[in-house]
């Protein structure tokens, strides 16, 4: 009889996000191969790796939006289906058409869908939640602005506000700093740090190696396979970077990173 291999190691139930043996492929090409990782509670974790390493795919596989070939994902020790309400996802800004006929308020209210459902009217309490989320990202003055008229940074803040309105425990962000201005980057990182201080967990796909050590306390380094995971101090090392990026990361760049605070 054919015996299916199952990973019997139990994922840590205290971890907001634990992955065992996750493999995903697009057609013939594997995008992720047998990835194990355990995100620490109340951490801010950066997922880094070269282009095509499977960073975004990892988030999508966690959310079940790309099919898994194999592997288990547990959210706070349970299956995704029962814990979905505890996750807020911020997709890449470039993944949507900002010419969509909606204003800032409309987009943030989408974050309340799980409470409002199909037909329940939007209440004052809902409006207050949306208003609060906008205030936290500094966008309260833009509530009636058409989303296509916002700058890239403002659009990214609106996406973050929509996730904040969900009042989740685990935040998954896909390249939240891509194409945003410096002020927005500072504003976003401040919001994320406050989330962490409030006991939430933040996981972000990140591409700017020079800010990893400043912004995050944990790092996951992947290149189709998991290369390393853990605290910045012990994990974000030149050797692991070399293993993750291969020849694509020049020694000079690593030196610059070292000056920027890399240990």
């Amino acid at each position, binding site marked *: 009889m054919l015996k299916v291999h199952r990973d019997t190691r139990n994922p840590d139930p205290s971890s907001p996000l634990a992955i065992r043996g996750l493999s995903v492929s697009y057609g013939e090409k594997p995008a992720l191969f047998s990835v194990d990782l355990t995100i620490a509670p109340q951490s801010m974790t950066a997922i880094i790796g070269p282009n095509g390493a499977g960073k975004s795919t990892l988030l*999508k596989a966690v959310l079940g939006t790309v099919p898994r070939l194999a592997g288990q994902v547990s959210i706070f020790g349970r299956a995704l289906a029962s814990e979905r309400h505890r996750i*807020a996802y911020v*997709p890449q800004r470039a993944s949507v058409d*900002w010419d*969509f006929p*909606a*204003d800032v308020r409309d987009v943030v209210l*989408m974050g309340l869908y799980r409470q409002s459902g*199909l037909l329940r009217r939007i209440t004052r309490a809902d409006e207050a939640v949306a208003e609060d989320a906008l205030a936290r990202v500094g966008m309260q003055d833009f509530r009636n602005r058409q989303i*296509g008229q916002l700058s890239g940074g403002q659009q990214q803040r609106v996406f973050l506000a929509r996730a904040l309105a969900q009042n989740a425990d685990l935040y998954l962000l896909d390249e939240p700093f891509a194409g945003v201005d410096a002020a927005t980057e500072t504003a976003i990182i401040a919001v994320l740090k406050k989330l962490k201080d409030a006991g939430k967990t933040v996981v972000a796909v990140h591409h700017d190696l020079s800010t990893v050590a400043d912004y995050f306390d944990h790092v996951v380094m992947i290149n189709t396979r998991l290369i390393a995971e853990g605290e910045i101090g012990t994990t974000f090392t030149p050797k692991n970077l070399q293993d993750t990026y291969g020849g694509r990361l020049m020694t000079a760049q690593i030196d610059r990173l070292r000056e920027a605070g890399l240990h």
Partner: protein
Amino acid sequence: MSGAEFVPLSLTPILIGVFAAISCALPGNFLVLRKQALMGDAISHVVLPGIVVGFLITRSLDAWAMLLGAAAAALFSVVAIDVIRRISRIETGAIMGVVFTTLFALGVLLLEQSDASSVHLDVEHALMGNLESLIWLEARGWSSLLDPKALASLPPELPRLALSLVLILGLMLIFWRPLKISTFDEGYAESLGLPVRAISLGLVMVAALAAVTAFDAVGSIIVIAMFICPAAAARLMTDRLSAQIWWSVVFACLSAILGYILAGYGPMWIGFDHAVSAAGMIATISGLILGICAVFGPKRQARTG
């Protein structure tokens, strides 16, 4: 024009045109926003083979057989487009073009070969419909609207279209939020646990329902025009989705009413003898409205991202 002339000869075709136009314009808004306007085109083409096959199986022009046949054909074309996209990696637009022209051509062949063409189904009817012939001869004037005996002889297309319009409106109201969220940001909608593939398929099915009920009365020219023109024109008038839907309904009504009247009387006003096809005129008017909105619409500026 007196009620005694207007009610029997013009009221029902105008109402049928209006209902058909609105039924198509409503799902059309979402098709256009999802960059699937071509899907509306595809659906209205595959309705033809669906109706013919429905007729061949049941041997009747029963509306339900046609509706089921068309829905099956629409479902088949959506699945076929998806399968070909997965295995061939050809661009989606090209696949849609191939699938719907092939199925439409197959429908024409089936129609010619079968005895379906001897009854009420024929190629010209499929293209242009027969809006002008959907008159209400029993009507004696406005009072007939309250006369049960006269009402019983209404063209059956009218209550059928009214029913499907109510159904489409109801579905859109109930699923408004999931439709809006998944149309704007599918990845996010999926992260909320919304069944985005089912929503997308449901939208196509609603479009198929609109196409098949409208097709029977007004032909595929209007169906194709009404899926795209009112919604695209409405987008140029407003930056709010709910307002866009209302504008599209206004444009759909305007096209249907103006188109019908101009087709019937316009040629005589400028000295020609014969009326022209109402379906053709309605579609032309909807295109003109889109053109006017493209030039003068308040929200037509290209946006910066």
